[in-house]
């Protein structure tokens, strides 16, 4: 059974047809990497899945609940879909601990102490147990991104969307973040990543989706697809990034 289901999704920015009929099914526990050139619509696709962007035709559902960008829907959706951004988007005026505790206390109405316990556990998980009282700006990019992952995990999501989460990092910090993702994948978390990390897509991911000109151009098992691309476009793309 599919956890995330996209059925003939079309999206326009004004006259510009960004997504041209996307079909995609993602099962619980799957790790799906979406790859493609910039402008191919991959980030937009991700943002449609959690309602940050509207789509004009077709249907998207997560955990059998339909996704629309109505504000209230996004909030309900937030309970099952977590998202991590390229620029971390931590709240600068809150400590790491407060960043993680905020949504559990005011959205899930958990007590401060419960939320604190969760926050500590999640920080341990991403290897930052000692940063509870630090402010985000004191952390490196890689640490900030791991806090962002912990913050998303604290809402206990069923699926985690990652929008180019290593693109803004210095190369030497990328590994720490990927390691956390790998561990999450091993624990059975459903991950959907827009990424340029081909090695990660091949070694950790189950499936790769190649997007081109607003369409799912080619998809399949990650190892097979990346070693034996069928379409000319994917061959070119792989040639360009590797």
């Amino acid at each position: 059974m599919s956890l995330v289901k996209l059925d003939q999704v079309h999206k326009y920015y004004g006259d510009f047809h960004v997504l041209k009929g996307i079909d995609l099914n993602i099962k619980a526990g799957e790790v799906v990497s979406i790859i493609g050139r910039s402008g191919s619509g991959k980030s937009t696709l991700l943002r449609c899945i959690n309602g940050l962007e509207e789509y004009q035709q077709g249907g998207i559902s997560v955990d059998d609940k339909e996704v629309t960008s109505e504000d209230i829907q996004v909030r309900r959706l937030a309970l099952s879909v977590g998202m991590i951004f390229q620029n971390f988007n931590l709240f600068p005026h809150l400590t790491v601990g407060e960043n993680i505790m905020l949504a559990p206390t005011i959205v899930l109405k958990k007590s401060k102490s419960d939320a604190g316990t969760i926050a500590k556990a999640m920080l341990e998980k991403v290897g930052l147990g000692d940063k509870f009282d630090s402010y985000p700006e004191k952390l490196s990019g890689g640490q900030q991104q791991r806090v962002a992952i912990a913050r998303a995990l604290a809402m206990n999501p069923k699926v985690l969307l990652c929008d180019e989460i290593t693109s803004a990092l210095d190369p030497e910090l990328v590994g720490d973040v990927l390691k956390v993702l790998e561990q999450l994948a091993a624990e059975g978390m459903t991950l959907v990543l827009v990424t340029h990390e081909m090695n990660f897509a091949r070694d950790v991911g189950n499936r790769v989706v190649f997007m081109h000109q607003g369409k799912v151009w080619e998809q399949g098992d990650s190892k097979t697809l990346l070693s034996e691309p069928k379409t000319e476009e994917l061959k070119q793309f792989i040639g360009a990034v590797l």
Partner: protein
Amino acid sequence: MLNFSDLLPYTDVFLGGLLTTIELTVLTTFLGVMVGTLCASIRQYGNKASRRVVTAYVELIRNTPFIVQLFFIFFGLPSIGFLLTPWQASIIALTINLGAYSTEIIRAGLSNIPKGQWEAAKVLGMNFRQTLMRVVFTPAFEKIYPALTSQCIIVMLGSAVLSQISVQDLTYAANLVQSRNFRAFESYVVTALMYLGLAMLMRYVFSLIGKRVFAYREVR
């Protein structure tokens, strides 16, 4: 020729005036920033009609002198049935005035908040009000805090005009004293210095508050 000792018998008068000015300032700084925060939020996030109303309010106040606003409220409104004491008229006038200026300032802070902050809050399930209160306001105020401080001080200094509707503030005290002892220069110099001290004190208090509220900036 200068003789400041003639002022000494009037110490109580000066202190009384100073106290009134401080009271008015504390109260209206608080109220004015509240009005400004509300109006700035409407102007930044409200619908077209409400944005228009706020813009009209801001432009009207910013493009007329405070003394005229005060006279209109104190003399004009009673003539159509709203009776106001000088104290009430002063509080209304100062609040409306600071409200308009701080609207512009605070709005600049709000528009400075990156879209990503809103999106991050949204995907965590927070609603508009929660995001505004818990995520947006603090960093927004931090950006414009110096400008807001200056504006509050400008409004405090502008409150000298209230003496014209016989509010017994610091300026009123100065006028009273110089009419009794004919020491205009001395009286006004001392009063001006008291205002200067008050302005510096305000800057200091604001920076203390700022250091606490925006502590996350200090720890770098």
